[in-house]
């Protein structure tokens, strides 16, 4: 029987995968994918809680919807930044984006 724990494990796995992806990728798109993974890991958790905890039923779904919207907005903004960055530097390597360093 698949229970709440399994979903939480899946969410944690996705989260860790996302974090590792963010930490290891130098490609801006890769980092963005990592972020998406982290967000979706969190979403899996929220949806799981909404399914298994009646007190959290509505809130869980709304939170996850919020996260999806947020992820979409974030993706739009981030991709715009990446495109601009590419236009200027002909690369999407985040390590080369160091001009704002103090």
């Amino acid at each position, binding site marked *: 029987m698949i229970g709440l724990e399994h979903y939480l494990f899946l969410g944690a796995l996705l989260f860790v995968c996302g974090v590792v992806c963010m930490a290891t990728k130098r490609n801006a798109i890769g980092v963005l994918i990592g972020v998406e993974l982290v967000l979706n890991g969190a979403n899996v958790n929220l949806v799981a809680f909404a399914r298994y905890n009646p007190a959290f039923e509505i809130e869980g779904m709304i939170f996850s919807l919020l996260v999806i919207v947020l992820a979409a907005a974030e993706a739009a903004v981030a991709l715009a930044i990446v495109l601009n960055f590419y236009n200027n530097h002909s690369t999407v390597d*985040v390590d080369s984006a160091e001009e704002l360093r103090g």
Partner: protein
Amino acid sequence: MGTLHDHPFLWFVIATLLPLASFTYLLLVGGVRNFARARRNHPAADAVYQGLGGDQPGRRAAYVGMAAIFLAFVCSAMGYVTYFVEHHRVEHESERIAEENEKLDHDLKSLRRKGRHFKGAEAKENSAKIAEIRKQIKENQQTVHESEERLEHRWSGSLLWARVWSSSAADPGSGNTLRIGARIDHLSGLMFVMVTFVATLIHLFSSGYMSDELDKQVEDHQVHGEDGGHFRRRGRFGRFFLFLSLFCFSMLNLLLADNLFQIFVSWELVGICSFLLIGFYYERTSATNAANKAFITNRVGDAGFIIGLLIVWTYLGTFNFEEMFSRLRAPVDMHHGHVHAHGGHHKQAVTDLTHRFVKADATKDIEGGKEMTMKAANEAGQYVVIMPRPMGGDHEDEGHQHYNAGELVDAKDRPKVGEHGYMPYWMLVVAGLGIFLGCVGKSAQFPLQVWLPDAMEGPTPVSALIHAATMVAAGVYLVGRCYPLFAPETLLTIAYTGGITLFVAATIAIVATDIKKVLAYSTVSQLGYMMLGLGVGGWAAGLFHLVTHAFFKALLFLGSGSVIYGCHHEQDMRKMGGLFPKMKITAISMLMGVFAIAGIPLFSGWYSKDAVLANAFGFIREHPQHVLLFVLPLITAGITTFYMFRMWFMTFAGRPKDHHVYDHAHETPWMMTTPLVLLAILSVGVAWGNPPWDASNSFMETQILHHAQPESVEVDFHDEHHAAHAGHDFAGGLALVMVVIGFSFAASTYWFGFLDPNESKEMFSGVHRFLSHKWYFDEAYSALFVRPAMAAAGWARWFDTNVVDGLVNGVGKSGLAVSRVHGFFDRVIVDGLVNVVAKVWYAIGSWLRVFQTGYIRSYVLFLGMAAAGIWLLLWVLTMAPAAQP
């Protein structure tokens, strides 16, 4: 015009103010011009500057100055002629009335004699006649008095200048006011005409002589610039006339003044003008030194003058000449002693004190003063009684002037109106000596004569002005003005000072080789004659010599200026010679001047020098112990002739000694020769009388100066004048012998060449050295005064730099040390604390900086590690209490 008609002395005031107006105008224009010049980048200022002549000095200054002084001459000549006529009319009138009164007096006496025998009605008629005659006499005296008063009123006036302290109601006439005033008499009027005339000619001459200054660029051959070349500057034509105008104004104001204080102010103005003009070429060290020497030497004299002024002010409370004299000299009809009646006949023990000092001894102290016993005219006394100040403003208090037989008098320390005062006799002498010391400085008398020869550094027309009409004349004029103030001791000092001066200066002039220096020493010598003349009682003689000397000395100086100009600024007579054919006008007119100063008969100097010598002779006849006072001027008359002819022969006669000078010599332009000719004419004829060959009958002396002579002179020197008159021909004859001797020496040495000047120079080399060092006066003063003063200045400077400055520096240094400690505390402790705080935070920041790498993965790593860390912490915290039980 009405005012001028009522108060004709205003002509002289106008004459005085004209040069002042010219001075003010030139000063303003020059000021505007210089102001615009400094800003000539601006077009408006440049237009003003170019409008005023630009870089090129114009002749306008000369025209303005000359016009002013010439108009002043016209005004003073008109004024003086008016005065002369009026004064003579009044004098004639009073003489006539005096004769009439004498006749009436005679009638009166005979009537009285007859009256003794009359009786009854006859006696009554007789006494009525006597009363009528008495009334007539009194009326006549009143008329004379009134006309004299009117004359005085027309020819003097004054304005209140400053009230020194407010006079109380009890003593309204306390006289502590300073007034600006003018008073004209024969002396000041004559001097006005002389000064303005000579100054006009000098202005004319200067406009030619100073024409070098008209150039845009003047090269001064006596000054070397840093690069070794000659110094170049802009021409200063205007400035010269600016100073000349101020000089003339100062001198005229000095002549105009009716009080000592105004004279003192003008006196100082004259001094500053001479300073400015002697130092006209102020780039030359010698010129500035000479200007300083003149100014400082005059300060010595002026110190004496101020002492005199203070004494006069303290005791007499006034500076007005008339008031001073009326307080010091006894009024008319003052007598000493009683008419004793002894057994029927009168014993006359009365001496006339009129116009004399009233000497007295203190008998006892009274409230606020002393009771005095008055002495007879010829007795000595410790005090001089000061006559009461007249009541109120008008002189209508004739009543108090009758002192007959009043032997005792109450003299007060602070006399009020109508009270007698007193001053110690020695104070009177000191006051006279002090004023005379001022004159010694101005008129370059021994021992302050050293400045005048050095004053030759100024342009030659200035020398002429200083020597003839202004500066040195001021001293002699002042002695003449203050004459009634001088006690016999003072006058004797004046006479001896003059005697020493005239001899010393004449001997130095023998060896001088600079043409201007010869003239300078001759001026000093001639001033000595004037002082001597004044000192021995020849009031008119001394001032007579002043006037004649002014003409011939102006002539000689302008002549020498003409020679110097014609020889392209060569002044050494040893390089001249044989110039006669080249400059005939100059040579002949200068010869007239030489004749005049030497005292050749019929030339002006003859009359005045004879008058001085006659007075000296009269004086030694009465006082044989002072025989030097006649011998010195007599010998000097010969010396004068010698050195003046030596100068003329060396310059104009003989063969040319320096062909460079000779070849370039030329006669000077008309504006320089015209004054020479005019002055030459006056040098000959200014002193003529009727007939001209009578030396003692010069018009100027007998008709002009004798009328200006203070009454006290005739009283004090009655016997001397008598002897002088008797010995006039004798003294003149002796002088003529000396002149002949002097001339023959000069002619045989420098004209015919019988004697070789170099040989005699070798023979008397010691004397020559002594004389060419000017009796070592400069060296002596340098050792006695200049060097000690320099040493004292050095000490003062040492004291100043080391002690005064040391104190100040010490205070500064200790302040510096304190502030250093303070600064250390501030820097290390206060700032240190603040800095340590800042440094700590800076270090923390620097350390934290390491973690902000800018790499996303490192941030994620930190995030992950932090999350892991927090999780671990939570785990430990939750697990540890669980594991414990």
